[in-house]
Structures are given as C-alpha cells and as structure tokens.
C-alpha cells in the first residue's frame, strides 16, 4: 500500500526538553489515523512537524513523499489543516472565507465559485449564506472548516481536535465527512479527546510523555490490553506517569 506519512526515529527537542522522543510510524494512503495523548504529551509538536511548520531535531520525516527538512513548502501545498481553536475568520462571511482560502492556494476564481456553491449545497448552508462565520453554530462551522481545508484537494488532511464541543449528532455527521474523504483515497490524520471517536479510526496511536505508548487498530489494542474500550487503555497508559513534567 502507498505510504502517505513516514516517520523514522523522529526526535524534537526544545533546549533540554524532549517533546518527541524517537517516534516511528507509517500512515498509508486512505487511512484514518487517530492521534491520541494527554495535553502536553507531544501531539501538537508532532503535528507541527508533519505539517512543515517546524523542523525535526533528528530523524526522517516524509509527508506526501516530501522531506520535512528541505521540502516543507512542498508539504504545505499537499496538506490541508484545520484545528478546533482556529479554522475560519469569524468576521468574514462563508463565501469570503472560502474565497480567501482558495486564494491562498492560488485557485482560479471560477473554481472557487464552483466549490463555494458545492459546499453550500452539500452542507445545507443556504440559510447562513449572508451571515458572518461567528454567527454559525459550532458544528456547522467545523463542517465548513473541514471542507475549506480540503479545497485545494490535498492528499493528507490534518485535523486537530476538530469536534471539541460539537453536539453528538453533528459530531457523527463530521465523521461521515471524514469517511467520505478517506474513501476517495485521502489520508486523514486526526487528534481528539472523544474516546468513542478513537474507535472510528483505522489505526490509533497513544502518545505519553513524548513517546508512542501504543499503536495499532482499535480492536487489536483492546485485545492486547484486555480492555473494553480505548478510554480504559488511555487511562492505563497515561495515569501513573506524571503528564506534567515538561
């Protein structure tokens, strides 16, 4: 199977503090890869490196076939990114946001217009067209943000806690969107604090203190740890280890 992300012996240090301690994993094309870990376990650091925003201290990192040391600009063109904290501009309308992000990736205005209409129909945004993004319900905003992160047809999409605070129904609709894209061959890299969402991933990794503590399919992990659900594994791995010593 084609490899979308390849990480070998990745180390990232900030001064004496080791944020990522010898990470190794591969993500295949079309896979939904869940990235779990306590706050401060090193998830954000790793995602930043994979997105080409930060350079690793040592190790090999390849994203969409490009090297994170020298080709971070190429990486940026081939990935989409959305996070819970920031996704769209609150004081712009839906169309203005789409036009802005389309413009960043140098898409033609004809194409942007076509995509705008497509998103509005697909996400049933007709009634919100004239509104500012800050007036949208969070769930709708996040669904739109996901589509916008996808506008330049990247091969990998990074989602950083995309569903935090979203209601249970919309949360599931959001996952439908994720599946639909994965089905088209897109690789999805997602972090979440909802443990039921961990089960929706093809494979998950749990980070503890900068290291990968567990990696595998949800079913295999549950079997290995003799656990009923991912939440139990997470608590087992993360508890007892002081998660605050950075």
């Amino acid at each position: 199977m084609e490899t979308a992300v390849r990480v070998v012996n990745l180390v990232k240090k900030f001064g004496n503090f080791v944020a990522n301690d010898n990470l190794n994993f591969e993500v295949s094309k079309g896979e939904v890869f869940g990235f779990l870990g306590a706050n401060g376990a090193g998830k954000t650091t790793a995602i930043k490196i994979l997105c080409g925003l930060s350079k690793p201290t040592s190790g090999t990192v390849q994203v969409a076939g490009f090297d994170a040391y020298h080709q971070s600009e190429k990486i940026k063109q081939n990935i989409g990114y959305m996070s819970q904290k920031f996704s769209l501009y609150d004081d712009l309308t839906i169309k203005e946001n789409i036009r802005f992000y389309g413009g960043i990736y140098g898409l033609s205005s004809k194409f942007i217009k076509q995509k705008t209409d497509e998103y509005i129909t697909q996400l049933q945004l007709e009634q919100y067209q004239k509104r500012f993004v800050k007036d949208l319900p969070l769930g709708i905003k996040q669904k739109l943000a996901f589509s916008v992160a996808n506008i330049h047809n990247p091969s990998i999409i990074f989602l950083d806690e995309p569903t935090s605070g979203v209601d249970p129904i919309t949360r599931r609709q959001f996952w439908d969107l994720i599946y639909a894209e994965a089905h088209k061959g897109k690789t999805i890299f997602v972090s979440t604090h909802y443990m039921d969402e961990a089960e929706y991933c093809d494979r998950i990794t749990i980070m503890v203190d900068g290291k990968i503590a567990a990696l595998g399919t949800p079913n295999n992990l549950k079997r290995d740890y003799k656990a009923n659900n991912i939440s139990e594994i997470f608590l087992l791995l993360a508890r007892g280890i002081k998660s605050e010593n950075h």
Partner: protein
Amino acid sequence: MNNAIIIQSLSKSYGDVEALKNISIDIKTGEIFGFIGSDGAGKTTLFRILTSLMIPDHGTAEVIGFDVVKDYKELRKNLGYMPGQFSLYQDLTVKENLNFFAGIFKTSIAENYHLIEDIYKQIEPFKNRRAGKLSGGMKQKLALSCALIHKPKVLFLDEPTTGVDVVSRAEFWEILKSLKQQGITIVVSTPYMDEAALCDRVALIQKGAILTIDTPENIVSNFHEPIYAVKAENRHKLFEDISKFEATKSAYWFGENMHWIPKENFDEKSLENYFNMLNYNNIYIQKISASIEDVFMELMIK
C-alpha cells in the same frame, strides 16, 4: 434551605437569537448538577445570568437566597465561578494568581487552605511557573483553586473539561466529588455526554431549551425504546446498508459499534434476517441499555 438555586421561566435573547427559552429548574443544596449540551446550547448564557454577569430578559433566578439581579453584591461574595475560557493571568505565576484572587475576596491562601489542599498539592511543584505555561489539565486545576479560595457556597464551572484529555478529566471529576463532601453546591456544564453519569442530576439542554431534567439513572431507564449494538467487518458497508433498511428508526456510530433503534414492531430478528439476505457473515447484534448520549440524540431529533 433545600434549594440552592431556583430558576423560574428564564429567557434571554441576543437580537433575534433566542439563547434561553423559558427555563425553570431547581437545584438542590449540596448536589452536583450538570448541564449537558453542545456548544451554543445556551449553557454559558445561563451561567452568566446565574453569576449575576448578565440580566435576563424575563423570569427570575435566586442563588443561595439572593436574587441574581437585585442582590448581586451579596451573591458575588458567596459564589465561585470558573468561566469557559481560561481566565487567569497568564503572565503571573501559579502562586501569584492564587494570592491575587484570595486578595480580592479579602481572604488568604492560609485561611482556606483545607478547601484547596488536594488540588493545590498537585500543582504546587509548579507554583513558580507562569500560568500561561501550564498544560491544559494544570490550568483547570489552578482555575478551580482560584474559584474556591474564598470558600464559596456555590460553584459554577462552565465547561471545565472541554479540550482536556481523558486523564485530567477523570482527575477533575474526582476533585469535584471531594468538594461535594464539603457541602458545596456544584453546577457544572459539559459537552461530554459520558460526564453526565458523574453528576447527581443533569439537565440536557439544546438550543436554549431543556430537553429533560433527572438523575442520570432515571434518564436512561425512562428511555423505553429498544436499542441494539451492531458490529460487522466492513464498517462503511454496514453503515450504508443499515441506513437503507426500512425498519431502521435511527442508526449511528457509537465507538466501535453502530447503535440501531428499530421502528415499532421490529426487533433484532428483523435485522438478522435483513443481514442474512445481504449475505453478511460474522454479524454481531446485541441488545443494550441506552447511554445518556443515546437519549440525548433521540431527544434532539424530537
């Protein structure tokens, strides 16, 4: 005093958006009461009214005997509040933050140390670190310490665990339980449905209206529709097929399983037959009891 908080037909609108629609609730003294609902449900507006930060359009609310509009001065001396956004001084250290909040309530850390001892011990190793440099879980603990330092009679926690990892969330709830032992009434809101089970009573809230108020156990046991967990090898195909099934009232993912609620007069037999017809192997169907999240979604659709 049996009720710590009495809310009567409270309404609040921002322009043409109704944030709260005629809400009435009584919250008992000494209980942990949870408002369970997603972002935009009206939880923050309700908390701001109850903490006297906002005036309702209609209706009244009394918190520990004080009217939230008229008696706000007395009320403010007796309530602890932790807003949804992390609201401490990021450029002050842990210790300085705590000292400051003790100071504005005219008390000292020493005076009420017993209240925050359990929490503070966990963050004490970092007492000289700036609050902005703490991790999510630590920030929440510090914020809680600051909200408790003046020994409030009632504590309002607006989404204290949003964006916090499972471990820190579990620890946070343990702390809340021990605070309950001290006789403090705790009102907490959360978007995590699994946290509902940790409250004495909960209100499910959606689009400014209360869907139901009860103990978590009763909410679940009052849900009379049969519900089944379904599992198959090909998740995508399972979802597509089950959605098409005529007997399906609703079907949605729930962790590793799909939850299936059949229309009236159908049961697992009909689902089994359907899968046999489609040549499924290794199909797993199990009748289960509903969780808060199942109930919430059914109520949302209504």
